């Protein structure tokens, strides 16, 4: 077994940055350095979202996005499930009516277990209902139509959209905005960010989606991972700068290295 041609640099880079991230996670857990994340307004607003719904006696809606857990959208969906875990804790604490809508069947059991365990952990097992997590449809259009219908039917007060979104992002967000629903959108889907910014009260963009779990739980290990992420970005910036300078000077050494 050998490293496939064209992947040599990628393989060793993978090993190196994995080691770097593991080091920062362990170092942070042992207290060798303290990681702080700047305040993210959108994530701070989640509690306000749930509180608002509780005061109004209406449900708070959560969607873990359109992604699956077996494709390239898996990191987005898993990050959304981390956020779901936090939102469940807050909803259980406030005794808020809680609705989670699911597009991909694979996500359904994970979301159900996350919500159920959240209510058990908050000593509110009696408040958990099996219709809190609802599978809507794996068809993108039908999912959007179903969720919009639910906004009307259940008179949702707040909506948190986390994870991967596609063309229906504006359908969901603008429909909710017209109904006066308070919204927080958390996504790394670059093409949908403008729509969420235009229609939602708070938008958390890009890598902040993956940092949300660490931010909301303040867990040292997860925070260490975020620090490792920043070090990787410094390495990437370095490679981009060196590559730009060398290419401008007529050398293609960096391209050769990257495609080794």
């Amino acid at each position: 077994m050998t490293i496939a041609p064209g992947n040599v640099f990628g393989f060793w880079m993978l090993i190196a940055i994995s080691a770097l991230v593991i080091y920062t996670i362990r170092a942070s857990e042992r207290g060798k350095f303290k990681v702080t994340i700047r305040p993210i307004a959108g994530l701070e607003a989640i509690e306000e979202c749930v509180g608002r719904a509780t005061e109004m006696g209406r449900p708070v809606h959560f969607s873990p996005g359109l992604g699956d857990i077996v494709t390239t959208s898996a990191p987005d969906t898993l990050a959304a499930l981390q956020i779901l875990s936090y939102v469940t804790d807050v909803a259980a604490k406030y005794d808020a009516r809680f609705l989670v809508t699911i597009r991909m069947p694979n996500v359904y059991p994970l979301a159900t277990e996350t919500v159920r365990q959240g209510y058990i952990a908050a000593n509110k097992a009696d408040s958990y209902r099996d219709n809190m997590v609802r599978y809507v449809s794996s068809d993108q259009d039908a999912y959007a139509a179903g969720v919009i219908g639910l906004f009307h039917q259940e008179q949702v007060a707040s909506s948190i959209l986390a994870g991967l979104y596609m063309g229906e992002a504006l359908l969901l967000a603008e429909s909710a905005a017209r109904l006066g629903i308070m919204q927080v959108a958390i996504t790394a889907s670059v093409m949908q960010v403008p729509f969420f910014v235009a229609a939602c009260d708070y938008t958390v963009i890009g890598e902040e989606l993956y940092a949300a779990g660490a931010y909301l739980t303040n867990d040292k290990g997860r925070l260490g991972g975020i620090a490792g992420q920043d070090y990787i970005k410094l390495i990437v910036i370095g490679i981009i700068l060196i590559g730009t300078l060398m290419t401008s000077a007529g050398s293609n050494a960096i391209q050769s290295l990257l495609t080794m």
Partner: protein
Amino acid sequence: MRKEVPLLITFVVALIVMLSQVTTGNIPGLGVAMPDLFERYISPWMTVVSAFSLCLASVNLIVVHSRNISRKQSEWIYSLILLGTLVIYGAWCTYIQINPDNTAAASNYSLIYNYILSPLMTGQWACLAFYVASASYRAFRARNLEATVLLASAILVMLGATPVGGVIWSKFPVIQRWLIDIPNMTGQRALLIGAAVGSFVACLRTMLGIERGHLGIGGS
């Protein structure tokens, strides 16, 4: 065991998937390549798990909508339509599978899709034009410096993209192209690189069992 087994499965499967992307040739002692190992042993399990998940999700769908109908909750009629369509499609498809020679039944199977669902979906997407207008109106109100810059950029891009813009001033399409290719692309690529790095670290944390909230067994 409830924690360890799922975490071990996650680690082993993630390692196989990761190595199947970057390695070639047989694994010493096993006589099979990493990509084949993934295709032969991991991929079928994904189908099995997906089938079980779909079954669970369908039960949830039927229970929720049956409850809506039995309790005559608001807009219960839509729940009835949903369950009715589910039954009709299920029965029809089963009939076609049992009687493959009945070509009329097979060709009419797509009637509901082509003449009801497809126009409804088209109508739904058509609403987006109005939604873009109303969302843009809210976003473009020049309340602060950022919104003013956004408004000015939007006007320039719209003028450059429409034929009338080029007639008013020939430089509008050039400015539009520059706005899209340089500042817009720079921002998008920065977001993409950040998201890719974040995505990788999130995967690594999940692989190592540091992230385990999705298993319903708490954090690290």
